[in-house]
């Protein structure tokens, strides 16, 4: 996709998203999206040759990416892996709860949305794991812990927690800190580093309390 195509593509995605917000996933058509975006049907098909199905999938992915972009911005200044996870969990959970369109679609069309989310899951796991890996690499890890496997575990668990925190209240800082310490990092980083202090940039040095 060339740079010149971006605005049109972006406009179509925005248009389709507005339709989804109004009418839901199942009732959004290529025509609606085209009208909303102010482009022709042919233009929509040029960007999304698979038509409606491809367009809807692209809207879901696009929203995913927007969400993660905001999440990255939120986490940009986090100083430790603990902070990244605590802030990330809290921010993501709150965003998800406050995402009106998502919440509505989850109630009205869970059978349409969830398979799409599941299809994207492996890609999202890889993305989150890729984001966490450099943070993990700065820590003194417990013996035998593989950075990539640990990132994968953290990605899967945090994504699960964001969607369904179970008995954890992710908007309570103490609970979130306890969750991160006990269920996410206890097996990964050395005990000395489990209090959220800033890690040193050199590898192999346990962080002082």
């Amino acid at each position, binding site marked *: 996709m060339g740079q010149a195509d971006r605005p049109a593509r972006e406009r179509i995605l925005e248009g389709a998203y507005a339709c989804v917000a109004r009418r839901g996933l199942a009732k959004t058509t290529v025509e609606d999206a085209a009208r909303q975006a102010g482009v022709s049907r042919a233009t929509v098909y040029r960007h999304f040759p698979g038509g409606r199905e491809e367009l809807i999938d692209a809207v879901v992915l696009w929203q995913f990416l927007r969400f993660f972009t905001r999440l990255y911005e939120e986490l940009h200044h986090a100083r430790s892996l603990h902070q990244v996870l605590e802030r990330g969990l809290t921010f993501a959970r709150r965003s998800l709860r406050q995402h009106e369109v998502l919440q509505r679609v989850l109630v009205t069309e869970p059978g349409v949305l969830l398979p799409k989310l599941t299809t994207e899951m492996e890609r999202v796991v890889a993305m989150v794991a890729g984001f966490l890996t450099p943070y993990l690499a700065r820590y003194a890890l417990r013996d035998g812990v593989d950075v990539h496997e640990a990132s994968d575990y953290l990605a899967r668990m945090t994504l699960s927690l964001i969607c369904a925190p179970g*008995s954890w209240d992710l908007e309570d800082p103490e609970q979130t800190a306890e969750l991160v310490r006990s269920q996410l990092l206890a097996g990964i980083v050395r005990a000395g580093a489990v209090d959220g202090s800033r890690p040193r940039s050199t590898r192999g040095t346990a962080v002082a309390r």
Partner: protein
Amino acid sequence: MKRDIVSQMGGIAGALARGEAGRGGGPDPSAAAGEPAGHRRRREATDRSRSERHRRQLIDGALSCLEQRGLAATTVDDIAHAGGCSRATVYRVFPGGRDQVLAAVVASETSSLLSAVSAAVATAGTLGDVVVAGVLGAGRWLAGHRALGRLLGSEPEAVLPWLAFDRQDRLLEAAGQWAAPLLGRWLDHPRAVRLAEHAARIVLVYGIGGSATATVADEGWVRHLVTTYVLPGVGVDPPAPAGTVARDDRSAAPGDGGSTGDRAVAAAGAGGDACFAGTDDEGARL
């Protein structure tokens, strides 16, 4: 119609929480009035046992239909045929028809899953073993469930809604409450609930949302996962190493539900709720 089934499936978390699913409760025949009590009891007993048998046949029949045809294509006639009953019998035992049969299938399968987990952990002697055996028991049950496997593959829209978001919350909480007593020998209740919920989440994440490479039906992987990522976080105040034996237990024979290996992990924990040797048992991890 599908949404009705889904909402009934959602009711399962409530049943779990009330501890009903584990008992596989039978139908609830309402008492007929104006009949001597002795007669009524005898008649009801006969009716109940026949109903119970038909109920079982129809649930099994419905399961085989789901496996062979999927959900959308399964009709009351198919269920009756597969269960060796008439259509009228289906409606007598399940007045709500197809949806009620399907809800009974979900309740029955939940009960079966819980039994599998109970059986898997029965011989486990340490906290670590209980967690490994429980995750593995659930993982193997899921992996071996052909109807569920088929539905997740061909009709995910019918299954995923009751495994995700709010419904997953209820499922996790119910699983945590249900499984916590299994950990009561080693942990106080709040921590047992947390750990049980963590284990249940692992089953869901790797067993249903799972990646192709990591499966919770594989003992080596489950033991590694639990030992590496779960057990170290259980003790709030990590005890002194206490003569920890670090050894590689991952080669334990598969198929024994994890009852033999991993003693080192929890041997030191039997006495105190915060204690267990797994906290520093790094040798068991690779």
